[in-house]
């Protein structure tokens, strides 16, 4: 390393990994209750992680949550962008994940056909 610029570039590269500990960005929440897991939440979770990694998204954290009582709509995935309503998507299949990520997470456009509810921020 020879210049301050090199250091700053290195920091940017390294930051993505440490970001998770200071996260206040976009949250993707997968319902991982027994119902969710039975409906395939594990596969959806893996698909989410793959998609986030593939796009090298920064400022995104992936959470899990328990059963919220809409078991028949599982797998449930929530996407919350800072300052925007938290949107719940139902009956999500791994194949839907790329669309959810590209439309909602990256571009902020809600994927209406999968929405089951919204919670105001």
């Amino acid at each position, binding site marked *: *390393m*020879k*210049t*301050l610029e090199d*250091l*700053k570039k*290195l*920091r940017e590269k*390294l*930051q993505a*990994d*440490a970001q*998770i*500990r200071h*996260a206040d960005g976009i*949250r993707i929440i*997968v319902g*991982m*209750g*027994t119902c969710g*897991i039975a409906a395939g939440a594990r596969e959806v*979770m*893996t698909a989410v*992680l*793959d998609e*986030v*990694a593939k796009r*090298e*998204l920064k400022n995104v*954290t*992936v*959470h*899990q*949550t*328990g059963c919220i009582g809409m078991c028949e709509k599982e797998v449930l995935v929530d996407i919350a962008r800072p300052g925007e309503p938290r949107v719940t998507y139902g009956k999500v299949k791994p194949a839907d994940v790329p669309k959810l990520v590209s439309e909602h997470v990256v571009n902020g456009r809600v994927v209406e056909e999968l929405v089951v509810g919204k919670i105001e921020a």
Partner: protein
Amino acid sequence: MQHTRAHVLICAGTGCTSSGAKKVEAAFQTELAKQGLQDEVKVVETGCHGFCEMGPLVIVYPEGVFYCRMQPEDVAEVVESHLLKGRIVKRLLYQEPISMERIPSYKDISFYKKQMRYVLGNCGHINPELIEEYIAVGGYEALGKALTTMTPQGVIDEMKKSGLRGRGGGGFPTGMKWQFASNSPGSKKYVICNADEGDPGAFMDRSVLEGDPHRIIEGMAICGYAIGADEGYIYCRAEYPLAIKRLKIAIRQAEEMGLLGTNIFGSEFNFKLKIKEGAGAFVCGEETALMASIEGKRGMPRPRPPFPAVAGLWGKPTNINNVETFANVPQIIQKGADWYASIGTEKSKGTKVFALTGKINNTGLAEVPIGITMREIIYDIGGGISDNKKFKAVQIGGPSGGCLPEELLDMPIDYDSLLAVGAMMGSGGLVVMDETTCMVDVAKFFLNFTQSESCGKCTPCREGTKRMLEILTRITEGEGKEGDIELLEDLGAQIKDTALCGLGQSAPNPVLSTLRYFRHEYEAHIRDKRCPAGACSKLAAYRITELCKGCGLCKKVCPVGAITGEVKGQHVIDPEVCIKCGACFTKCPFKAIVKG
């Protein structure tokens, strides 16, 4: 590349390691592999969070859930419930001592809420053995900024403006010290980091060295640039093996990245660092003794002047600062002196780390803005006195400091206010004492420490502290005489005026300050042959009150047969036979036996 969705931070400081953090870490690796989560969840070893009493500590991100006293057998549950299904394991959360509420998040725990963690900001949040984690949070940018955009004098001016004062105890303005070393002529100069933390109970320096070693390296390099030194030493006690190990790793990594060595950041500035292990003598924390020890001589102080800034290590101009002082440097350069000076009081700027111990609910490291009151530290952060006892005094500043009574709890703490009341900031050890602590005994404890650590070079310290200790021992054993108090005061004043170094000059402080605020306890020992706190065993007198139900338990446990009485009748202790062991006192189910 797989996206890691969760980080499991396991504290690997000395405290948590000794309570079993390594086993917990191994259990996490096994359990994560069992659930197939090893690629999406990362396990990170970190430094100390300062809440060692609650260790082993584990924090799970992104939620920031704080698990305490984690045992290897708890790990499977956390992995399955929390990391797989997203359910927080409530029984492992921290429980507030008063409200008994379980708190999931780190930042909501009352121990942390009032703290202002800058110096300790990275401790517990980054892996101290990876330079990348330090760089990811902005590490070494202050050094880069200083080398590429500031002149050495500019750095010194910034330090002066910040108002930072030496955190080792003396409180000398850091910028001034750097200025003196910079003004001294000569092409060879040294920077020394004093990591010979010796005060009983203080462990903030160890915590920073173990949890964030690169911060110290960066602070020292900035100092080297400012005063024109190309070589530095970290003098660290050998009792801190983990700190030394992490420092060695950190120095090697910094060298590999070109952050130590020659032409750092493409400038003309060269800097290399060495570690010198000390053998753990308390006096080697005194700067001239410390330098003698580095030179391979016996660690004894010498008279000043000349000060180290003029003739220090191997006779060359040298700047010595404490670990916590250096730890403050990068943020001052990075965020600016004005930012730093906005924290604290008029004459004492910034934050100070205190090591909170004693009869208190939450013990550990607390970083607070200078100027906070003792009451806030003890009751808000420390959670109050344990076992619902009454507060009596707080000892601040270790063996050089003093004891403050309840009347001074609301005084804002800074360097000058503490000196005015007969204590000192010292390295920041805080020992809280309750009503069962005898102040004469406390003074004796600290004097015993300084007495055995006295190097013996000057007479006032070598002989004077010994005589004072003899008098104190006599008083606590019920042999005190009229005039002892005056003799203690006289001797104390003499030693303060005539001892060669800081150790001797401050050694009488614990005695003088307890005499100032708790004179009545000394008098009770001498005149009434009584220890009001009931702590001095030779003066303790046990008595059975009318609460006695005549169960006979005390009679059974008494090893010398001093207790007599009929079943269901009042029992009595024969003071002539009683050896004051206290066995009856602890055994009595009706609290009928009183002490003192």
